[in-house]
């Protein structure tokens, strides 16, 4: 079938296929050039960028857990200016759309980041990470309070015309409340889930395995939770939902589409299989062919619950 159509829309942004790479798991893309065809991807989301460079947390920063990993990178990044001068020239050579993930300690940070990126050619969208604690408000996470999440969304919306994705934290009682809040504040899409807060201890040394004590859990272990949250969120909002969490195969991705995701992001899987994202694109084509479907869009929300 030459007519396979994997295209999906995230607001004004059309993607050639619904497979993106998740922020913080794909570096600045160049690292993966030897292992896959970057231009086969639906989109590339780069490591979260803040206004100023950040050194990140002391080591150890990562630890393996059962079918997952914890990370406490501490949002190490080169800062917006070096990102633009050092990373954008390469990223601009790629035809796959580039989405820049941003994070800040305050509303001003977010506004300034969005404003700055709006001027930069070669950027197709912004993903706002609201899981970081708000330093000014005493460390309360933007991502756990609907009003704060909405406020971040609104300032970014006011500062850029780029398609705006808000990335939600799963560490909440009801993620649909968060999704509805950012939808109302102007988000073009929501992506979920960010990492679940977790911890690991070395029983022998009696020390935390992460210098930061707690970290974010990701990988196949979290997939059932992510899928459930995507399913709930897709029913709660009108904007596209981008599914993230433990996706490492085309079948995993299909699960998320059926649950209502318009696109997916591949995260931790990039580490253990750097060609995973491209394999998922190929696997989706194969899935459509096998199921005699022409369009990926027919899968979205097509879960057969037998009327429930």
């Amino acid at each position, binding site marked *: 079938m030459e007519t396979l159509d994997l295209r999906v829309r995230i607001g004004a942004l059309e993607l050639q296929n619904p497979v993106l790479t998740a922020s913080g798991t794909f570096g600045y893309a160049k*690292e993966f050039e030897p292992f896959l065809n970057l231009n086969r991807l639906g989109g590339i989301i780069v490591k979260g960028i803040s206004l100023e460079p950040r050194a990140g947390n002391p080591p150890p920063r990562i630890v393996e857990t059962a079918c997952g990993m914890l990370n406490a990178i501490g949002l190490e990044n080169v800062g917006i200016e070096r990102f633009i001068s050092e990373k954008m020239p390469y990223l601009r050579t790629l035809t796959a759309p580039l989405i820049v993930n941003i994070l800040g300690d305050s509303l001003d940070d977010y506004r300034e980041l969005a404003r700055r990126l709006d001027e930069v050619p070669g950027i197709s969208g912004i993903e706002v990470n609201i899981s970081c604690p708000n330093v000014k408000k005493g460390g309360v996470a933007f991502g756990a309070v609907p009003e704060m999440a909405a406020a971040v969304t609104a300032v970014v919306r006011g500062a850029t015309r780029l398609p705006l994705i808000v990335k939600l934290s799963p560490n909440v009682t009801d993620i649909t409340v968060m999704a509805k809040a950012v939808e109302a504040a102007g988000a073009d899409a929501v992506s979920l889930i960010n990492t679940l807060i977790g911890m690991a201890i070395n029983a022998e040394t009696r020390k935390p395995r992460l210098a930061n004590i707690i970290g974010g859990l990701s990988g196949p272990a979290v997939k059932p939770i992510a899928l459930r949250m995507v399913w709930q969120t897709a029913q709660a909002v009108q904007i596209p939902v981008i599914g993230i969490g433990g996706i490492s195969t085309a079948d995993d991705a299909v699960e998320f589409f059926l649950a209502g995701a318009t696109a997916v992001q591949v995260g*931790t899987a990039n580490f253990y299989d750097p060609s995973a994202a491209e394999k998922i694109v190929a696997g989706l084509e194969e899935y459509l062919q096998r199921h005699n479907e022409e369009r990926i869009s027919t899968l979205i929300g097509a879960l057969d619950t037998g009327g429930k």
Partner: protein
Amino acid sequence: MPQSQQQSRILANDPLTAEVFRLTVYSPEIAVAAAPGQFVMVQVSSSLDPLLRRPFSIHSRGADGSISLLFKVVGRGTALLAKARPGDKIDLLGPFGRGFDLSAAEKPVCLIGGGMGIAPLLFLAQELPGRKHALLGARNRDELAPLAKFFADIGCAVQLATDDGSLGHHGFIPDLLDEVLPDVSQVCTCGPSPMMRGVARKCRAAEVSCQVSLETHMACGMGACLGCAVPGRDGSYVHVCKEGPVFNSEELPWEL
């Protein structure tokens, strides 16, 4: 040095002791690109647990497109690796990292390895053109003797030390260094941190350049996860998989 992902056929998995194995795989793309001090990321299981690849230094390179890894069973991943059998396939990524820099080596080079830190030094010895000296240490004769032989076989001058005195000097490697240092312009070391600090301290005193190869936890090996950070000199962090694993000891904030 292009990197690649390669389903590699296992040619041999030889137990050198009950815990130490030499795994030889046919991996021509990685072999041809590899330089001493670089490492590969090995998928140790086809299941999702353990999830992450494990980093191993390239221990030697064959003329036939093969590379060998030297590893010790210390946990679940290496235990699985010990069960790999000739004919099995194993997924490798690499070569990764910055290897040893020998552009400035004029006088003989001294290689100093402790335990599994000996692994990358054999490949280095193979590739070094001139005279080379190896100071090798391990817990005991069982562990050290087979490794020492590899170095002797390729014409290294070898001096040995064991923790229990069962082979060579009874004590630590840095003890042997004073004697050798006047004759070398470059030291390359890999092993436990205290050993490497001891070596670096002596090199600094003797004004001999010292390259050290670090280990840390890694998720990706290719600079994408930023998980492999260790403190650098200026209060910031360096990434072992990308700026390392081999560093000039002066790049590290070691209190010398």
